[in-house]
């Protein structure tokens, strides 16, 4: 177990692209080429989900997801370009297990963030409080640990940070728009800049506590006890916000391996899709996965609002579960995943990916390994062995006796219920079908 954690937290260099493959630029504004924009979104989304699948450092990509759902931004919103989202994503990657305080400084001048929370409109003459508010409410202190006056004062400190679109979409500080007057923030007074505000926030015990709870909810269970949160917060502060130290504590803790933490978290659609690709030996995620993710309620790089995806029970409803089960079924059957996403597109904003994905490249078969490799070593005359292997690969054997019997009965019978033996003719089909049924087990939705 210790060795496994060591391997998780020590990242090795990877040779994966740091950038989507292809042109992700498009003209902003009313004359935007819709197809070009969709293509850019698809390429950007595919780049990220493929990194998740192909990385030799799975914890690094889990942390990138964690940060992206903490310091949220949305592609295409407020003029955020795909490239800005890629850059922000890479920022999270290079700080995956780094210093949370430093990352908060960096995020405060990240172009996507500046646009997402309107800091480009935050000027001395007319302050915009959006970033200051969310920085405290959602990114650090949590509600109840600051006042409206603290928001107004700290918003003044962030004035002047904006995005220069013409030259590389970089963040720039424009002193002309900065309010360099005196501010009073959390009981301290001075000519604070945005960096000063972040420093003061990091001195508050509430910050470590808020973050500890967030880490516990993401990695252990989503209603952590106050004792657990306090213990993690103490370690986090003592380690000066070193996320690597905190994650080591979490991954080696008894509570992480406790009964209470067992299958206590509903998989995000991304976890579900990437996990299934791994089980099936897929080397690549196809565009159809983006359409399916969209229907499961998780368009990559497009959280529902600044609070991110709330997760938990809200992932689970009739529509999303049917989509989950149907998508995994299509993947196991290696048919076009487009068929799984096959409803008529009539959605709200969230179905943007769906439109675009259905327009291109959807007919590609899922790029999975040969089914015989999924169950290599299982003998042709051993339907029980095949069933158990499939159950192990999907739910680590967490099936009830009835569920196991149901899948075994599928392996041993044909569609009208007549007994069949496994043979060269039906082996691949039965492996695919058994895998598909195992994906439909409720336990598969939980991690």
């Amino acid at each position, binding site marked *: 177990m210790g060795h496994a954690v060591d391997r998780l937290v020590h990242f090795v260099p990877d040779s994966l692209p740091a950038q989507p493959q292809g042109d992700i630029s498009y003209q902003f504004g*009313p*004359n935007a080429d819709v197809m070009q924009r969709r293509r850019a979104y698809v390429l950007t989304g595919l780049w990220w989900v493929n990194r998740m699948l192909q990385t030799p450092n799975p914890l690094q990509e889990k942390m990138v997801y964690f940060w992206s759902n903490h310091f949220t931004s*949305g592609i295409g919103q407020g003029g955020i370009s795909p490239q800005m989202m890629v850059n922000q994503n890479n920022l999270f990657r290079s700080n995956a297990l780094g210093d949370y305080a430093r990352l908060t400084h960096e995020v405060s001048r990240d172009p996507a963030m500046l646009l997402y929370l309107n800091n480009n409109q935050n000027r001395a003459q007319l302050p915009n409080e959006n970033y200051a508010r969310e920085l405290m409410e959602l990114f650090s202190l949590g509600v109840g640990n600051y006042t409206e006056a603290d928001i107004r004062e700290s918003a003044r400190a962030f004035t002047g940070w904006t995005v220069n679109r013409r030259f590389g979409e970089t963040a720039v500080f424009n002193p002309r728009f900065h309010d360099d007057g005196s501010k009073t923030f959390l009981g301290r007074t001075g000519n604070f800049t945005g960096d000063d505000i972040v420093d003061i926030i990091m001195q508050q015990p509430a910050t470590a506590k808020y973050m500890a709870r967030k880490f516990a909810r993401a990695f252990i269970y989503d*209603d952590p006890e106050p004792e657990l949160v306090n213990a993690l917060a103490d370690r986090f502060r003592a380690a000066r916000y070193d996320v690597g130290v905190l994650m080591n504590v979490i991954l080696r803790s008894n509570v992480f391996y406790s*009964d209470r933490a*067992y*299958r*206590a*978290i*509903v998989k995000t659609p991304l976890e579900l899709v990437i996990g299934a690709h791994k089980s099936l030996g897929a080397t690549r995620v196809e565009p159809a996965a983006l359409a399916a993710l*969209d*229907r499961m*309620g998780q368009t990559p790089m497009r959280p*529902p*609002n600044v*609070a991110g995806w*709330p997760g*938990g*029970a*809200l992932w*689970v*409803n*009739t*529509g*999303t*579960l*049917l989509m989950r*089960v*149907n998508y995994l*079924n299509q993947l196991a*059957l290696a048919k076009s995943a487009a*068929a*799984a996403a096959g*409803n*008529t*597109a*009539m*959605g*709200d*904003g*969230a*179905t943007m990916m*769906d439109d675009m994905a259905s327009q291109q490249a959807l007919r590609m078969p899922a790029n999975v390994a040969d089914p015989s490799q999924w169950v290599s070593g299982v003998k042709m005359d051993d339907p029980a062995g095949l069933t158990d292997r499939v159950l192990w690969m999907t739910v680590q054997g*967490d099936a*009830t*006796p*009835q*569920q196991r019997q149901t*899948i075994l*009965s*599928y392996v041993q019978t044909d*569609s009208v219920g007549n007994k069949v033996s496994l043979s060269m003719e039906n082996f691949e*089909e039965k492996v695919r*079908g058994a895998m*598909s*049924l195992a994906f*439909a*087990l*409720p336990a598969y939705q*939980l991690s």
Partner: protein
Amino acid sequence: MSNRRQFIVQSIGGFAGFLAIDSIFARAARAAAASGAAAGAGRSLLVVNLQGGNDGLNTLVPFGDPQYYRVRPTINVAASDVVRLDSEIGLNPKLAPLKPLFDQQRMAILQGVHYPNPNLSHFRSTEIWQTAAPDKYVDTGWAGRYLDFAGRGTAPNLFAGVAVGPVLPKIMVADKTDVPTIGDLRGFRFNGTRDEQAEADKILGGDGYKYPFQSPYLSLVQDVENHAHAASTQLPHMVAGYKPAIEYPKTPFGQGLNLIAGIINANVGTKVFYISLGSFDTHVGQRAAQDRLLDQLATGISAFYQDLAAHKVDDRVLTMTFSEFGRRVEENANRGTDHGTAAPMFLFGGGVKGGLYGDHPSLTDLDYGNLKWHTDFRSVYATVLERWLGVGSQPVLGSQFSTMNFV
């Protein structure tokens, strides 16, 4: 969230255990059939989302105001084309199919509706309309909260709410009620091979509750899988015998309304339906794009009410439209309009007291180029909840809003 968690922990037996599905289904149908007793019984609400921000000024046209033609020099609706409702105001000609409903007092138009501190982002503003919470982020939608409230203490209903479309809209997200999202009949089912079907039925239908471990979410997932399986199995039977009295438009919107009419006639106690039409985000070349969508809206709603009337259920169904915002008063350089604020809402159905409600917002007294709203959208919701669905609105909306007289 905490409510939902408590619910999960308490609902070990599940809210739609696989053995009980038929009886629940039957109970729901009986309850619906015994309508008339309680206020709101037998009635349902259809919410239509005009997604993308529908331009109110070219929908309900203030053709009597010369300022309209000044601010809309190239994309205006000519006064001669307007379907006149009075000497000042009229409908976009594409809405002509709705005029009979207006003349029969079965169509109400509420002018100048929006919410405080308008947000011009599609995402956020849609979320505000769907959660009825302009000043905070909440996890549930107002229709979802209504379904939880109306369903308390009664047998669970598989089809208490129905959303037509690919994803569950936030308006229908509830703590306790699982609302099926139905794209179309064909897509709303497990799409495995024939060979898998019998076993998939067992797994999805609730085979095996006794796991060797505890997980608060396991029973939730199992229950919702049961629910999805039961609903997708029942739905084709429910609507199998249904014959529309009129042919619906062959658009996704028209076909969605057709499906809704079928479910209404199955009489299974559905309280809220949802469907969306779009995108109305007409930054460029507005006339053609918006006209096409308004045509779909009008022909769809017109067919829907003719069909419901033929089945004698039109008095039971109230339809309400909304859009996340109206659009900028002045047209832009691309013969389109940018994001705005206040806009009209439309209501249809037997329960409606027809006519125009509220004044048309001024085209000169503006808020940074946008119309000033005068009617809070939560007053509209409160009216629908109290006067149509027959429940108190305060538990659903969080506070008390004044009600109106359109129903």
